[in-house]
């Protein structure tokens, strides 16, 4: 390899290294194309199912979703939703039947329900080092048929190459969580 080619190759490596993604991510999206999303003016964000060790992960992601949805649709106050759930004796949203979803929507005058699962919200380990990771799923359920019309799964990880090897672009857990929710809701905006 000539000196010139070697220089070009090194330059290319540096560019790839520094312009590469600052974090690792993946996404899965489902949209029911036959559903008319234009009819949705007001939504209820139910408590998120929390499958992590962090007790508040579900609440944190739920609040981020409410905040991110505000530009798109009107959301019912979390306090109003929780009070209705309490009155209906629903302690675990996983037990909610289609009929109950319909009833909640009717009572709170909402057109759809947002549900979700937090799979990962915390530290992941790779060898000696740990880095933040967030994995969430957000669904939209239409109350009439009780079917899922939109679903997105986002995974964000702070374990980038630059962070691992140079300590650059280290993100906090909530920065990743905000980005995960923002990207997830963006798929709804793009419908």
């Amino acid at each position, binding site marked *: 390899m000539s000196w010139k080619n070697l220089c070009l190759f090194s330059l290319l490596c540096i560019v790839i290294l520094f312009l590469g993604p600052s974090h690792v991510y993946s996404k899965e999206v489902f949209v029911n194309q036959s559903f008319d999303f234009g009819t949705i003016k007001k939504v209820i964000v139910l408590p998120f199912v929390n499958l992590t060790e962090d007790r*508040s992960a579900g*609440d*944190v992601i739920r*609040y*981020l979703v*409410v*905040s*991110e949805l*505000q530009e798109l649709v*009107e*959301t019912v*106050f*979390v*306090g*109003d939703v*929780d*009070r209705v759930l*309490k009155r209906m004796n629903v302690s675990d949203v996983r037990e909610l039947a289609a009929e109950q979803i319909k009833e909640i929507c009717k009572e709170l005058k909402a057109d759809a329900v947002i549900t979700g699962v937090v799979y990962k919200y915390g*530290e992941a380990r790779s060898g000696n*080092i*740990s*880095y*933040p990771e967030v994995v969430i799923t957000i669904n939209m359920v239409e109350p009439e048929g009780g079917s899922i019309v939109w679903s997105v799964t986002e995974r964000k990880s*702070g374990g980038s190459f630059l*962070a*691992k090897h140079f*300590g*650059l672009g*280290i*993100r*906090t*857990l*909530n*920065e990743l969580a*905000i980005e995960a929710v923002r990207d997830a809701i963006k798929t709804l905006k793009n419908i």
Partner: protein
Amino acid sequence: MDKLKILGFLLLFLMCSSELFGKPASLRFVVLPFENFTQNPVASEVLRRITLQKLVELDVDVVEIGEVDRILVNEDMVNVSFIGKNEFVRIANLLQADYIVKGAVLSFTLERNWNISYPSVTVNLALIEGKTGKMVSVVVETEGGPSLAQVYLGTEPEPLNEVAKGVVKRALYKLLRAVRR
């Protein structure tokens, strides 16, 4: 004549200055107790007081915390998680407030990753119109992560409270834009 013109301009400037500099003149705010989703038991109280302080610094009329808490106890609304639209209107009415600030602390901690400790503060603030109970605006603001000096020179991280002040200031700036509009 020139003096009159200058005086006229000055008067016009003063009349518009509130609009220009975005001071939400003569509006009364209530800051409700914050919800706490952190491991730190005092995080909600710290962030609530910082929010109140920052609002006062913005020259906004804010109802004193003791008075707000007294009303919440009297009205049996101690658990802020269950406060909804009708309750917001009632609180605003009782305290004669124009807007209610409702908050949640999503993180207030020193995270430790990559063998470095760094602050992480995330706050969610919602602005609710007192008359209607409608949510005017809601923001999530966060700050954290280590600086380059911390990574390479091993300097101390910024204190949590200082980070929190910056986060609340930015969140309030975004929130109050909705009032100025």
